């Protein structure tokens, strides 16, 4: 054994860094081990980022870790452009939509405000450890009670409305309130992005509320680029760890979590080096942590079964297009740096794209969101639905087919883009899985659906961050409250480890 630490964090994704920072600031001697040669996980690779739009870091975490407030984005975010094949695009910023019918704009504003209030009530649970089923502690139940109270405080009508829609689908909700079209497509994209569900799938209102629960000084549900971009966020988190005395080692892939007398004892690196620590937090997805790093021999059969059955089929591919000169929008106007373009002209288009993926095929017309990075002269596309379990596998041909279909769609919005592209790169869910410790290449390390949320995230019996082997915790997106760059799972897991005294 080399070295001795209070806690080892496997994976320097943003959640791992948040967890490490909190533990280090509480005086624990921490070591972060990262397999790649840089920190930041899905945010961290400046050449080809899995998550180019790092919105939603919880303000409470920024405050608690003493991170620079600019990370919340000081300048007002740029409007999102939702592509409209039949005319001028719809532009959206928070509750304000333009380019839509005169009566739809106020209807949308009302809906956005209402969803925001309801999301805020649910958001109470984001920084709480979810209660255990059957044997919840007082503080866990108190968190749930606070959420129930917040929901009740919405008023009778609104609470009833929340309970009516919460398990239903985005399709019905949005059709009722604003009708199908580029605006509904933009919202339905938020509701389905990263998941294996179309707007008609049950539970997509819940995922929409999840997105709506993100907070910033400019309002809720916004995608706020931190000042300085993702790199600034990663740098701030890394420095937060090291300033508090934490050690970060990159290029140090973990092979095994060591167990002694049913307690976590440290890790063994792929190099064979063993490092001791009584507390181990894993930022890898639950399946990889439990099946590969820990080993099923330490777990009960039912626990393994639930872990195996966790829904983790990734649906998102990332494509980067380096371009010589950004063309103008077909409808007139330019795309600004950091601006988000949503290519989901209708909810039907999203549903149709999902239909193909359900059966393991690539959609003819994928739906996607794209951001323009003017500094790097790069167009970053997040496309779905591109199933991890693609029929015939993720061959170069499959990637080429996907890139061509995305290019064809983009060409409609930005005529002349195809000839402006100098290089293109495609990252499939399989690449995400192998590169970032996310089983199924799933962004959120597991579907955000009602049977995998709160006390059921990642699955029944594993929801309080601590795993059956004492001293082992899940601190990644697979744990409550789930994916997106919120930092909440890492934060909550570190607090759980501190509460249990690291055993």
């Amino acid at each position, binding site marked *: 054994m080399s070295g001795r630490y209070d806690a080892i964090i496997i994976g320097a994704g943003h959640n791992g860094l948040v967890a490490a920072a909190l533990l280090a600031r509480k005086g624990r001697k921490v070591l972060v081990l990262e397999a790649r040669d840089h920190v930041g996980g899905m945010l961290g690779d400046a050449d080809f980022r899995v998550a180019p739009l790092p919105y939603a870091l919880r303000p409470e975490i920024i405050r608690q870790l003493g991170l620079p407030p600019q990370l919340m984005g000081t300048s007002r975010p740029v409007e999102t452009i939702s592509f409209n094949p039949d005319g001028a695009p719809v532009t959206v910023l928070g509750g304000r939509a333009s380019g839509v019918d005169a009566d739809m704009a106020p209807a949308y504003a009302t809906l956005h405000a209402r969803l925001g209030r309801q999301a805020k009530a649910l958001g109470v649970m984001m920084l709480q450890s979810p209660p255990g089923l059957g044997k919840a502690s007082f503080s866990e139940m108190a968190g749930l009670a606070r959420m129930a109270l917040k929901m009740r405080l919405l008023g009778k009508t609104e609470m009833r409305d929340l309970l009516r829609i919460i398990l239903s689908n985005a399709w019905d909700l949005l059709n009722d309130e604003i009708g199908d079209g580029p605006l509904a497509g933009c919202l339905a994209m938020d509701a389905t992005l990263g998941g294996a569900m179309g707007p008609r799938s049950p539970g997509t209102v819940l995922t929409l509320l999840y997105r709506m629960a993100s907070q910033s000084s400019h309002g809720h549900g916004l995608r706020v680029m931190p000042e300085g971009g993702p790199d600034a966020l990663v740098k701030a988190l890394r420095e937060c760890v090291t300033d508090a005395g934490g050690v970060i080692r990159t290029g140090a892939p973990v092979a095994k979590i060591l167990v002694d007398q049913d307690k976590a004892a440290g890790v063994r690196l792929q190099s064979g080096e063993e490092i001791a620590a009584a507390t181990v937090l894993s930022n890898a997805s639950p399946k990889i942590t439990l099946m590969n790093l820990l080993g*099923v*021999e*330490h777990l*009960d*059969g039912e626990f393994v079964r639930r872990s195996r059955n966790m829904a983790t089929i990734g649906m998102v591919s990332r494509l980067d297009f380096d371009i010589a000169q950004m063309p103008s929008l077909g409808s007139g106007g330019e795309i600004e740096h950091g601006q988000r373009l949503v290519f989901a002209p209708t909810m039907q288009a999203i549903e149709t794209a999902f239909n193909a993926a359900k059966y393991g095929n690539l959609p003819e017309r994928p739906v996607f969101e794209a951001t323009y990075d003017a500094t790097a002269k790069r167009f970053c596309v997040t496309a779905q639905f591109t199933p991890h379990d693609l029929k015939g596998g993720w061959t170069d041909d499959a990637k080429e087919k996907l890139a061509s279909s995305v290019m064809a769609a983009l060409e409609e919005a930005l005529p002349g883009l195809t000839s402006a592209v100098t290089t293109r790169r495609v990252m499939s869910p399989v690449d995400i899985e192998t590169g970032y410790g996310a089983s199924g290449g799933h962004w959120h390390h597991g579907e955000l659906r009602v049977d995998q949320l709160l006390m059921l995230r990642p699955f029944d019996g594993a929801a309080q961050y601590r795993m*059956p082997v004492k001293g082992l915790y899940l601190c990644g997106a697979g744990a409550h409250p789930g994916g997106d760059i919120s930092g909440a799972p890492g934060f909550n897991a570190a607090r759980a480890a501190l509460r249990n005294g690291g055993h």
Partner: protein
Amino acid sequence: MAAKAKPVPQVALGLEPGPFHDRLVEHNRQQSWVNWMGYASPSVLDTVEFEYFAIRNQSTLFDISPMCKYTITGPDAEAVVNRLVTRDIRKLKPGRVAYCIWCDEDGNVVDDGTVFRLSGTEFRLCCQEPQLSWLEDIAWGFDVAITDVTRDIAGLALQGPTSFALLKDLGLAGIETLKPFGIADFRIDGADVTISRTGFTGDLGYELWMNPADALKVWDALMDAGKLRGLRVIGYEALEMARIEAGFLLPKVDFLSSQTVLRADRANTPYELGLEWLVALDKPHFNGRRALLDLSKQTPRRKLVAIEIERDKPAHNALVYHKKTREVGQVTSALWSPTCKRNIAYAWLEAPFGQSVTDNLWVEIYLQKEIRWQRRMARCQLVQKPFFVHPRRTATPPADY
């Protein structure tokens, strides 16, 4: 165009004849059959008294082919079986059998059965309830093959004091050295037969395992050799009497598998069943270990106890009272034991009864005497299992009765 009916293969309805069925039919004067895992199994062939006393005084044949049987083979077989059961199976040597239980993640018993260690990397599990999906869950991630061999192996229990002499008469060389819970291979009338010195009667006895194709041949050879040894074919009812005397528990009667209960609190832990001697908490992780570790430090909610009741009327399904007034439990299996001459039963008692409070316990027995019912409060006391113990069960070599 008129639709044409497609011939559909017929699904066999009703009970299935087992490998010994042709012979069982000949002996089954009562034509009394019960459904055991889909097989027609005799409950009584002639009279239960004759069959019972044959277990204790002669020797008996009982068809145990309907038992669920699984093989677990491969490099990780020992690890998988050790992960399944609560005993430390690493201590079980090849050629030996162990009675085991296995638990779910809450520490509740899933089933009990016998584990046969056939070699370093080959095990066979015999149990009452189908376990294939459970075994596959336990074995996931390990390098083993699990096969349901229920229909590939015919089983016959040869039990009773003269069983050893009978086998010796058949010329089975070395049968005298087979110790309790030992396994050895023999040939009977040209058929390969694996014999284990195991059984469900608490008496001297063996279980014979063979290819179903050889079943009738082996049966005939045994019946032939048994003529002078008082060999008798028995049914389930006689065996039930012997198993209560022997102190064995019966799933679905004395306890329920945690996989089948609808009410979560109906499942039982090894501590409640009095089977804590089967739980090796000091071995590496096995299914339910963490829950069992916690349970081992707690007082069981209830306890399955052996009781002896005054007078002679068996206390079937009786309620148990403290000081004749407070209901504290109920009887699951009851018997007037003809061999022990004791009125015996198993009963579930809610804590603290049967644990710290053991006196002034009564069972409420209902007796029907020519249509008229009588209620009798009979005093009972806790006793140790088994009720029937005889040195001939374990003597090696066994005596030539």
